[in-house]
């Protein structure tokens, strides 16, 4: 009786929590339908009959940003354990067999601000697929022997990364860019934490984050939204609300700004060709969503063949590629300028790169036509991005976790509204004159030959 009462209370609480988000306030593209269940689970149905398939995805607001050092890498291990065993499929052999019976194509990913799980199968298997997802997300079984086998698998994924010179550069940059809070930005984690993880730690993650009110269920494909909503409600409707907002209850600590630029040269025998990256702490959706939009427009401008950046580096043969990118995050996204330099002109490339970054402040760094072309590219990207129906849930849920559904829906239109002033504000706030981490990964012989440390250093 008490249990039933508690459950009812939680449902009422959930309804209150989410009553603020009435359907009228959520904007979605044509063919997208949104509903929030009484337990707080948001459900989006995307009707797309291009092929007779259905893709289902659950995204959870979990990932590196929720991890202190003692849990570093465990959102990712948790994601792996999702596919191991649950009340309906008590071992991974039976779990995998079921995916094969469904003819499912499936995977899961762990990022900084999202963990997601997705399955694609024949449209007629939608109900069976939702039941399968329900068992895995709500009723996992964590056994010590299963974890013992999965820990080296996850650590093996880490080791594969460490065997790649770009990963080594990226990983070293993260340590310096985020300082004490690096575990909040690196989903792969820490070897020791992964290798000593216990079922109890899995339960801690589950009991903090794996609730309907912290999750988004997306059903996409050759489906009817009313039928899909009904199935979702029937299958997931009794998933109990947590009664709290996990991200409010376990808040993300603020990232400390870099106080000075850091330069480093990482030598490794596996770097057959050098890579260079400059990284800054960029905007947060929570505090400066306008700059998150301006960032993408500026990155597109400097990706144009005609841009000063491409002309100075790629056209002149100083680099094979140069790209600037901002990763949209709710809590401080990184801005990364990545270069594959011509190893024969390494110092020249580096000097030009610094010169170009210095020129970002010039009001004539890009032309009106380049701004127009960048917007035209972003407009067409929207068409390309929607070409593959099975990727739509993942594209949308990324934004749901790090921004909002409205941000996702309005993004392309908002790109069109970006002005020079918006871009300048973004650059002035996050890049121009701001501290950065500059890293180079290079083979020891080449490093010695060019004396990389002599020029790749703070002036």
């Amino acid at each position, binding site marked *: 009786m008490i249990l039933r009462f508690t459950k009812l209370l939680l449902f009422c609480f959930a309804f209150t929590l989410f009553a603020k988000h009435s359907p009228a306030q959520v904007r979605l593209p044509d063919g997208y339908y949104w509903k929030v269940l009484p337990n707080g689970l948001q459900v989006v149905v995307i009707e797309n009959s*291009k*092929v007779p*398939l259905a893709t289902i995805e659950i995204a959870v607001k979990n990932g590196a940003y929720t991890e202190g050092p003692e849990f570093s890498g465990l959102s990712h291990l948790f*994601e*792996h354990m999702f596919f191991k065993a649950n009340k309906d499929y008590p071992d*991974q*052999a039976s779990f*995998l*067999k079921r995916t*094969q*019976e469904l*003819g*499912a*194509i*499936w*995977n899961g*990913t762990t*990022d900084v601000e999202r963990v997601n799980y997705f399955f694609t*199968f*024949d449209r007629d298997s939608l109900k069976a697929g939702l039941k399968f997802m329900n068992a895995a997300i709500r009723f996992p079984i964590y056994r010590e022997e299963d974890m*013992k*086998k*999965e820990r*080296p*698998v*996850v650590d*093996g*994924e*880490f*080791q*594969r990364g460490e*065997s*790649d010179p770009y*990963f080594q550069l*990226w990983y070293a940059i993260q340590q310096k860019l985020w300082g004490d809070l690096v575990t909040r930005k690196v*989903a792969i984690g820490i070897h020791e934490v992964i290798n000593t993880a216990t079922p109890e730690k899995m339960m801690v993650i589950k009991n903090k984050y794996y609730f309907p009110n912290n999750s988004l269920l997306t059903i996409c494909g050759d489906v009817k939204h009313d039928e899909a909503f009904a199935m979702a409600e029937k299958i997931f409707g009794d998933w109990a609300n947590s009664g709290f907002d996990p991200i409010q209850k376990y808040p993300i600590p603020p990232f400390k700004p870099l106080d000075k630029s850091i330069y480093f040269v990482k030598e490794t*025998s*596996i770097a*057959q*060709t050098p890579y260079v*990256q400059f990284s800054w702490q960029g905007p947060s959706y929570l505090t400066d969503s306008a700059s998150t939009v301006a960032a993408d427009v500026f990155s597109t401008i400097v990706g*144009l*063949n*005609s841009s000063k950046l491409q002309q100075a580096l790629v*056209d002149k*043969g100083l680099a*094979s590629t140069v790209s600037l*990118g901002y990763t949209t995050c709710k809590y401080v996204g990184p801005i*990364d*300028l*990545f270069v*594959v330099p011509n190893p*024969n002109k390494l110092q020249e490339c580096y000097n030009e790169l610094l010169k170009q970054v210095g020129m970002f402040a010039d009001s004539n760094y890009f032309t009106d036509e380049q701004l127009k072309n960048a917007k*035209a*590219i972003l407009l*067409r990207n929207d*068409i390309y991005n929607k*070409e593959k*129906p*099975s990727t739509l849930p993942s594209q949308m849920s990324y934004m749901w976790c790090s921004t909002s559904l409205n941000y996702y829906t309005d993004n392309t239109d908002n790109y069109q509204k970006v002005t020079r002033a918006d871009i300048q504000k973004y650059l002035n706030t996050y890049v121009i004159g701001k501290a950065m981490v500059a890293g180079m990964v290079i083979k020891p012989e080449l490093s010695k030959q060019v004396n990389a440390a002599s020029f790749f250093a703070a002036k």
Partner: protein
Amino acid sequence: MKKYLFILAITALPVGLVCAQSPKDAYETIVDGVKVIVQPSGNGIVEIQAIIKGGVQNYPADKMGIESLAMTALSECGTMNHDKNSFKDQLDKVNASVYGYSNKNFSVLRMNCIKNDFDTVWPLFTEALTQPKFDAKEFARIQQDAINALKESESQPDAAIDKYANKIAFAGRSYAEDPAGTVDIIQKLTPEQTAAYYKGILTRSRLLIVVVADMDRPALEGKLKTLLDGIKKGYPFEFKKSFFRSYQNTFSSEPRDLATNYVEGVTSGPEAGSPDYDAFQVAMRIFANRHFLEVRTNNGLSYAPQAWFNAGATSVAKFSVSTTQPDKYIAVFDQLVDKVKTEGFKPEEVANMKTTYLTGFYYKNETNFAQASSIASNEVIYGDWKHSLQLVEDVKKLTTDDVSNAFRKYIGNIIWVYQGDTKKVNPLLYTNGTLHKADNPVSN
């Protein structure tokens, strides 16, 4: 830059490239003696691929890399009407792609754009194909980039081990040639040499055109005719296929300072177009599932155990893992192979794989690019583009015995290669072969 997103599994999709549209919608026609295959797309995106058949069959070993560099030059070294910058700037304005690439079996010049931008992009595509300039300054730039790319691929362990496996397994055959070439060869190539080479392979006899788009047929054929009229007929070209089988297990290794070790094995596979082809594809997909279950789930030996059928002019089966315990891996692998050879696959495995093929049929080709690539590879390698559309139906007809027997027939001696800590591996365990219990045992 790359962004790190950690993914549960590196999954190989069901093999056999297939198309989402129904076969009745697709058609082929001949324009100026060139086969043109058109697949309506049902969307507003245009994908056109001009395929030059041959791949490594087109050049000698001491010129490998020349075709790849030529294909890159088409869009990177200007045309008779546009210098490189104006060419690329026009593409940027409409967010369209025109670029070339090469593999062991053929080369492609690809265009992809929004349908409304077709009239802007088509002239650039045709110029790149038929009037490339091979400007010397730009050529020097892409030459350096190609060298960089070669070194980058050597730094990527998955690419490096596959390249090493090909080099060892196909030694003495043209299939050992790396389309990307070598640093020594690339840096000696001149723009004149490369232009002359390209002129030699750009013949109607080697060309195939694949279109995945909703386009008016007469208008499309008119444009293609204008394009192809300017290309010489050339000598008849025959795409040669060869069968691969190793007569002993071998193990080759290279020390590398990596955080884990990379292992890859190469063995036989049926020739594309032969009767066992579909059954073997299914067999390798089921084996990949078993390989994943035993190597990763049950033994925790690797994050990325993979097994796949690599179809081409020379078709082979491949297996790979990254592992810190290579000796344990080979023991598990041998038992897996032996079990299939003695017991065969289970009927439900074959039935389930048929269902997975159906999902893969639609899933893999949600994009125009994937559909065009599927049609191109089926036409060049298999010899019939319609195979890409009929595969699901053909797979439905297979019996469990067909699939088990195909596995038994082709999985034989294996060429193993290894990169990593060579002290951690016992080569003998790799050359010993499986347990000699099968009806077609693997032996040294």
